[in-house]
């Protein structure tokens, strides 16, 4: 009965061998009923909290961290993907730019060549034109010189005829010659 009703325990003060029982059960107030009540209460609290609080909240928190982990992974993947596609795009732009540059260069070369050809052709034409003109001028001049000479010869013949007609008159000669010369210069001027 000692263990069942320890608060009723009465230990004689002179019973030294049981002093610790006295200390524990009476001075401190430890007793089986109280201890068992507290134990049961605490275990009930633990069981209820385990079912009611820890399990659902821990599960929720696990789910949440799992979801966060997943979304972080997805975000990482998307980031990598977008970086890759960006790089690809950059590469394409670069290629297009190079191609365009090449096209421009080609076009410029073609244009240069075309211009040069044209210039060469024009210069040749001008050259040919000038040569032709020169030839013409030369011919013209030759013809006029020839004409002049013929005229002059006929004038000289005419003058000689007149001199001969008038016979020997120095004055008349001189007059005749100057006349002819005048005529000749007039001719020349005309």
């Amino acid at each position, binding site marked *: 009965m000692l263990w069942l009703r320890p608060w009723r325990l009465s230990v004689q*003060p002179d019973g030294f061998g049981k002093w610790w029982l006295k200390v524990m059960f009476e001075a401190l107030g430890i007793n089986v009923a*109280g201890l068992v009540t507290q134990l049961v209460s605490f275990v009930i609290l633990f069981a209820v*909290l385990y079912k009611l609080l820890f399990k659902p909240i821990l599960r929720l928190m696990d789910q*949440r961290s799992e979801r966060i982990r997943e979304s972080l992974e997805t975000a990482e993947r998307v980031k990598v993907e977008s970086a890759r596609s960006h790089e690809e795009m950059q590469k394409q732009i670069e290629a297009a730019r190079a191609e365009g540059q090449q096209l421009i260069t080609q076009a410029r070369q073609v244009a240069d060549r075309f211009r040069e050809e044209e210039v060469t052709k024009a210069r040749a034409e001008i050259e040919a034109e000038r040569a032709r003109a020169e030839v013409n001028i030369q011919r013209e001049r030759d013809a006029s010189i020839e004409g002049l000479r013929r005229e002059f010869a006929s004038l000289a013949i005419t003058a000689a005829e007149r001199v001969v007609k008038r016979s020997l008159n120095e004055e008349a000669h001189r007059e005749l010659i100057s006349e002819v010369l005048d005529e000749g210069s007039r001719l020349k001027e005309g």
Partner: protein
Amino acid sequence: MSKLFRSPKALTILILVLGTFVLSIAGGALGNEFGGGFLGSPIAHIQLPAEPVLEDELFPGFELTNTMVTTWITVLAIIVLAFLATRRMTEVPTGLQNVFEALIEFFSDLATSIAGPERGRRFLPLALTIFLFIVTANWLGILPGFGTIGRIETPEDVIHHAEEKAGAEIDLTGVHLQIFDGKGFLALALPGSMDETITAAEFEEHGVGDGKQAGLLVPFLRSANTDVNTTLAIAIVAMFAVHFWAFATLGFGHIGKFLDFKGGPIALFVGILEAVSEVARLISFTFRLFGNIFAGEVLLIAMAFLLPLIGIIPFLGLELFVGLIQAFIFSLLTLVFASLATATHETNH
């Protein structure tokens, strides 16, 4: 200082504070010696064992004590809070759910840092239950009404219990009783009743007069951890769990720690020391919590006795802090002991 006197607001506050202080000294135990003591009541009867709430045993062999009542209130309060927190759980936590999640998160990190993720997860629920129970009980225990409202134990019962405890006749002049107005069952520690005491010897001789009764105030509520049974129960659960986990992890290797016959006499002796240290842990668990909370209770009673009104204010803060710290220490040590006991060669680094 001069600035203080020029500001009417500060001056008023200063005068009020000083006035309250003087009032509290005059109304307390010091002032009682000089005819004051109008705010105090006789210092409460302090005893280690929890007092029974009812005069008779609830059923044979079972007395309902005030610490049991407080334990049940504590348990109920925690369960209600937990129910409210988990009733409508949302992915984005709000309110109580948030509080509990933060608490669980904190202890989860703590347990993980002590015992690693896997074992920490296993230890977490118990450590957290211990923390929640102890901190709630401690904080409930400093509420007004604890220790000051109760039933009146009659002088006959008081003498009877004292004699039963001593196991012999006792000196009745050494038994102090309070005098209460009226004939009711309920009693309060009323202000101004500081001189309303009587020894049992005087009571036997000429009573207390009409309309009054003598006896002791037996509080209905008393902080749960001021009872060794409570702290011992938690310590037993904690140590039982520690050894259960150790046995589950190490099998009979765990018993081998205490009974090592293969390693010679020194190993055997070390094993016995280990076993003794386990018992010492149980006892230190029990009395660390009990001692701290009981001492806090006595401190509050003494301060309320010496300086009514304001004396307990700083100590209430202290008790809030001590209550929290003791709860944390208890659960932390449980985690540490569990971690040590379940340490294998792989996890022991």
